[in-house]
């Protein structure tokens, strides 16, 4: 049985929405804080004495399913000591256009030398710019993404949840 009144009810529903505040989050102005464990741009770390944690073992490259990490190791010498171990990474490159942000490199690393940060605004105009070198990965990323307090990470409560 067709129920014509029901479709009229639908009109009332759409009309009511007109006077409600949209729930859209205006992205570039408002950046929704990410969860603290969010996996974003990589970072290479140093020891407190300034030496690099990475010893060039290439385990991250082996673990990488997207095959986007390239490590070329070299021996440390007494007058050029870069890492505390025997060897260091002379070249450490991550191709960010291939990276899938799975975090396996982080898991594979025996020295916690590489971690995934919270930055996700890493688009570039050219693919070449997306190959991150060791210098870029060692430097602190430009802070662009807010990280939330763990307990209020899901900030604005959608309107429909507030009023139901």
């Amino acid at each position, binding site marked *: 049985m067709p129920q014509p009144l029901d479709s009229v009810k*639908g*009109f009332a*529903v*759409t009309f009511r929405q*007109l006077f409600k505040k*949209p*729930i859209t989050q*205006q992205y570039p102005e408002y950046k929704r804080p990410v969860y603290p464990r969010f996996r974003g741009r990589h970072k290479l770390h140093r020891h407190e004495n300034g030496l690099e944690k990475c010893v060039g073992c290439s385990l991250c490259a082996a673990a990488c399913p997207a095959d986007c990490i390239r490590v070329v190791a070299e021996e440390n010498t007494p007058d050029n000591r870069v890492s505390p171990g025997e060897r260091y990474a002379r070249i450490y490159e991550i191709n960010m256009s291939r990276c899938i942000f799975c975090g396996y490199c982080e898991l594979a690393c025996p020295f916690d030398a590489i971690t995934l940060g919270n930055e996700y605004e890493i688009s570039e105009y050219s693919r070449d710019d997306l190959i991150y070198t060791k210098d870029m990965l060692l430097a602190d990323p430009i802070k662009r993404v807010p990280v939330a307090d763990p307990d209020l990470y899901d900030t604005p409560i959608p309107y429909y949840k507030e009023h139901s």
Partner: protein
Amino acid sequence: MTEPWWISLIKAAVIVNLVMVAFAYTTWLERKLLGRMQNRYGPNRAGPFGLLQPFADLIKLVRKESFFPVAARDRLYIAAPIISMFAALAAFAVIPFGAGWQIWHYHVNGEIANVSIALILIFALGSLGVYGAIIGGWASESKYSLLGAMRTCAQLVSYEVSLALSVLGVVLMGQSLNLVDIVNKQGATIWFFIPQLAGMLVFFFAVIAETSRPPFDLPEADTELVAGYHTEYGGMRWGLFQTAEYVNMITLSALAVTLFFAGWHGPYAPLGPIWFLLKVFVLVSIFIWVRASVPRLRYDQLMRFGWKVLLPVATINAVITALLVVWI
């Protein structure tokens, strides 16, 4: 009551441009209203409240490469959107905007052309507009376009019957096919949507189908088909089809206002065109509201609704009106 030809020319230029601006802001209004009805903002990046969005869209469309399918019939392929656009715009020539004014020592009529069979002219132009869809679909030389064009003209032809029949009651009551006479008659007696409620409803549904807007947007059906008859069109040629559709909506809204809501008549006569625009605005908003509220029909439902509901209602309405007009 006659006016020099150059006044008509100026009026035509003014009205064509007005209609184009109205079209541009109808798209804006539609996106804005749809957005708000779905708890979104709608366009709000280009200019304040997204008011420059139509111009951004226009610039984008014009700058796009006007590509051309290899197999397409070149002249017809180019002509099709122009036909659609022409038919949509030309109908505005006979719609009265106001009572007419005395400017300096010239008399300016409230419409571009006072045609004695204006209503038939509008429906003739509407049927001409269907050719835009058919030719466009056929000339693109693509089976999807062709099938889309078939769907389109089946729908448009079906609903044109109801559309024409639904205004028969108004013609009988106004005792004229001249839109100016019909408007004046309504100003003198009663707005025709009261005695012609059934006719108005049929007209309203048929207009939605004629302009192929949701829930009757089977010709395009964005979520189901690629695009129907304008699958192979891009850039401003596609833009012209889209423009024609929106201008058609505005034209038919204006026609509805003229036929059922007394055109430019309102509480304060010198504000004629303002009343007219206000009524058209309300009608266009209702079309957008319908789009936001009702899901798309299936094709067989569409055909059934057109032939088994609208057509009989329109016919009965016309017959009863005729009997009443004769006997009362």
